[in-house]
């Protein structure tokens, strides 16, 4: 009998079989992508956390472990004020952006305001442009001496001094408020459009008047969307770097982000203290995003059905012209005025606050764009090339990752899919500058530091969830049976992806790609932490010109960035349409 050898051979083939059953294409891809995503997301955050307990000694030579950095947060001369300023700016921005966003959404979705279908794309433009560039434009409009509006006020009305000063905390609130209003708009307009009109009609039939119906039915139904939008605005403005850096920090109003920046690259660089500040900011934002995702976002779907209703439209009568005026004013101050100002300033060799047609020149564009010309400014021209590389490459890599991650989340079950789902929400909770600090302290001693790769890593980690959401919304809408029937027809996982899944997801993949392209093209708060000489990005170039050159040169590069963004926005709208945005 061979009874002694038999169990061994059976056992070996059993394990061989099990291994073969495990090593499927999708399992291998899942493991590889999970490890990459896990490392990209978790590693910087863990390193950031650990670094926050490393205390630099006064000479800057050595570190010890302890809570010293957290003590400094409270005892420092500037940091507590920066906390307070961040709180004031975020609160103010939230109030302004929510007021603007909700009112504009209501006008567009629920009133007979003339031309509302044409207005919507323009209402959304600020969402895609750079708030930093917005701050630069408003600085040139509302600076007490050289602000264009102040100059006009002096020339036209003979006013002494100035009528407007945006170089303070209120200027920051004003600029971030108008730039983030579209965020609230997007959250709210969808639920206003998709609300079942019979919910309101039935309130009207019980005898409730228009105001009462609005207060008791419409508003409570839209409230979760408003709250979601408000929280996102609060978190985004707390993490916003460019606007306070341009408008308030130079005048004595530091914020957390500007402080993190100075600790990361400034003369008194202390990465560990920077990491501690980033950690505290991250804890606050993650907590708020967690509340939004866990408690508020799910509720906005219970009341709003997905069916294509024609929402009730309110006849505003003669007031509709006022609504139109209000909406046009928003577009004017958010889009037209800043861009016009940038163009005007960029044409002057020096900006003094008044338009001088005789001296106008395109020289600033030559210096910032024509990298082959000897007079060109390297930092600016590098920025355009680097940003285009990062935007093309980063968006492409991120979308491949987003595709696989969405597939794993929505098409497979089990631990891996839940883990990936979690990992693809986490980056949304961390402001770019916080994640960038984590990436900096993680990779500063590796070869990828000071290359474009570290920037790309930061970009992709922070923003791939946006691409993932674009794909996921389509993936949830198409039946899983479409994939399964391909497998049953004999196609492998790869072939199914290539011939069935990806072609069906094409619109979502394109929309996500362009969205990431836009985000990467204007990215500032990650780049400002991770760039080094030679790897400047477009926004870093703008920062450099603004800090070390003059306003006209800054305006010229800002305009170049804005034009690139406007082209991308146009492409996005052509491909994705309005549904991809409001979904």
């Amino acid at each position: 009998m061979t009874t002694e050898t038999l169990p061994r051979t059976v056992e070996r083939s059993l394990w061989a079989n099990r291994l073969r059953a495990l090593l499927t294409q999708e399992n291998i891809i899942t493991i590889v992508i999970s490890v990459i995503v896990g490392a990209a997301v978790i590693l910087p955050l863990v390193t950031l956390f650990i670094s926050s307990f490393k205390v630099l000694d006064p000479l800057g030579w050595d570190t010890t472990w302890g809570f010293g950095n957290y003590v400094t947060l409270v005892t420092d001369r500037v940091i507590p004020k920066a906390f307070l300023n961040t709180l004031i700016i975020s609160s103010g921005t939230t109030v302004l952006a929510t007021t603007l966003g909700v009112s504009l959404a209501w006008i567009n979705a629920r009133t007979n305001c003339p031309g509302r279908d044409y207005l919507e794309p323009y209402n959304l433009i600020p969402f895609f442009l750079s708030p930093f560039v917005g701050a630069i434009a408003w600085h040139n409009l509302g600076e007490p001496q050289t602000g264009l509006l102040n100059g006009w006020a002096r020339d036209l009305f003979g006013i002494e001094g100035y009528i407007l000063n945006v170089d303070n905390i209120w200027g920051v609130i004003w600029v971030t408020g108008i730039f983030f209003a579209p965020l609230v708009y997007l959250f709210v307009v969808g639920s206003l459009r998709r609300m079942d009109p019979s919910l309101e009609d039935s309130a009207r039939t019980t005898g409730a008047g228009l105001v009462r119906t609005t207060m008791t039915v419409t508003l409570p139904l839209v409230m979760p969307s408003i709250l979601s939008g408000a929280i996102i605005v609060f978190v985004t403005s707390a993490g916003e770097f460019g606007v306070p850096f341009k408008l308030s920090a130079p005048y004595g109003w530091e914020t957390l982000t500007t402080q993190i920046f100075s600790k990361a690259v400034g003369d008194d660089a202390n990465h560990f203290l920077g990491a501690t500040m980033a950690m505290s900011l991250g804890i606050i934002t993650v907590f708020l995003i967690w509340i939004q995702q866990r408690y508020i976002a799910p509720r906005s779907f219970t009341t709003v059905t997905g069916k294509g209703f024609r929402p009730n439209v309110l006849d505003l009568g003669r007031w509709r012209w006022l609504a139109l005026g209000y909406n046009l004013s928003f577009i004017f101050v958010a889009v037209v005025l800043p861009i016009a100002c940038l163009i005007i300033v960029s044409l002057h060799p020096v900006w003094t606050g008044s338009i001088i047609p005789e001296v106008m020149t395109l020289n600033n564009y030559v210096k910032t764009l024509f990298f082959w010309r000897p007079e060109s400014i390297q930092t600016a021209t590098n920025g355009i090339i680097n940003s285009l590389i990062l935007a093309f490459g980063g968006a492409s890599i991120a979308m491949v990752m987003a595709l696989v991650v969405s597939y794993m989340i929505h098409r497979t079950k089990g631990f891996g899919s839940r883990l990936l789902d979690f990992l693809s929400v986490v980056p949304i909770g961390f402001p770019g500058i916080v994640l960038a600090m984590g990436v900096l302290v993680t990779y500063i001693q590796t070869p990828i530091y000071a290359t474009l790769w570290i920037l790309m890593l930061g970009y992709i980690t922070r923003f791939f969830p946006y691409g993932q959401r674009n794909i996921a919304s389509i993936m949830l809408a198409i039946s899983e049976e479409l994939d399964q029937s391909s497998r049953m027809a004999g196609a492998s996982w790869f072939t199914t992806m290539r011939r069935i899944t990806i072609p069906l997801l094409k619109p979502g993949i394109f929309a996500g790609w362009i969205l990431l392209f836009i985000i990467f093209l204007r990215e500032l708060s990650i780049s400002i932490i991770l760039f080094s000489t030679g790897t400047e990005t477009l926004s870093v170039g703008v920062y450099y010109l603004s800090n070390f050159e003059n306003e006209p040169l800054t305006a010229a590069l800002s305009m170049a960035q804005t034009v690139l963004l406007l082209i991308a926005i146009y492409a996005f709208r052509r491909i994705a349409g309005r549904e991809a945005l409001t979904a």
Partner: protein
Amino acid sequence: MTSDNRSGPYLEVQNLVKWFGDDRAVDGISFGIPKGAFLTLLGPSGCGKTTTLMSIAGLHSIDSGRIRVGDVVYTSPKEGIFLPPEKRDIGMVFQSYAIWPHMTVTQNVAYPLEIRKLAQSEIDDRVADVLALVGLTDMADKLATQLSGGQQQRTALARAIVANPLLLLFDEPLSNLDLKLREQMRVELKRIQNEVGITSIYVTHDQAEALVMSDEIIVMSKGQIEQRGGPHDIYSRPINEYVSNFIGVANLLRGRVVEVTEPGRGIVEITDHGKHIRIPCRLGPGIAEGQAAVLSVRPENVHAERENSSDSDLEGEVLQAIFLGSYVDCRVRWGDFEWKVIAHPRMGLKQGEKVFLRLDTEHTLAVQP
């Protein structure tokens, strides 16, 4: 091993167990079917029929058991075997049809052949043949989005059979069609399956569909098999209350077997419903004297009569008589029980009339509760 398989059933499922979280979706079921047969898994939603089908397809793993077709073991966790779905050579028709919207009918149907790397000329021939078989020759170049529900259904069927797979699986394929089309497609599906002769497993919750199409039916409930048999068997000899209630319509009365008169026959005593009566009947399998049993009588085996010609103790009052063309659907109150009775329209039964009910002893069955 090999010779063993040849003599056994073509498809064999042994002790299949599948958990979903804490829920035992399939609870150790076993069955086998011969080559070319048409088997239906029938049961309400959540009974484990679709899970069984998905296990055979390989669209999810199983926790224990073994699934084999011919000489090929599809799944056997104990042996560490899991064949991915694309290696199983199965054709499947999904509930949503799953016709790829970015391809034409021809492209959809040709897909399995392209995957198998057949020569283009052969692909063209076979696609044309199959489209003719399902009656879609005229639709060959239409996009899936331009097709009606029935046409999508036919495309899905064509795609499932074109590569001449080992097995054909149907997951409630007719449930999204309207009634008229559903009835037409039942016959059509059966005809095509007959013609191609591929061993088929069909999952449905519609008992009429199961009766019309199947060679054999497995009735499932809570992850287990209740009964297996031919359509006629299942209908006329349900093994228990659950099956007789699920298949067709039945009058079900709880009682006790008081006497076995001869093998397979006996008398059931009914004491519920404020009545006390003994009814002679046939005894289902596993029914012995003194046991609790459920009396199951189909409405067509209950005869309502104005004269008490058979000394029936079942005297009741017509509650409702609904004229349905070829027959009258009656409800007759007897104590607190309502008999479902099928009467001939010529009798002209009226609401409120007194009638006597005569049970067809040959078709009065005592089954397990």
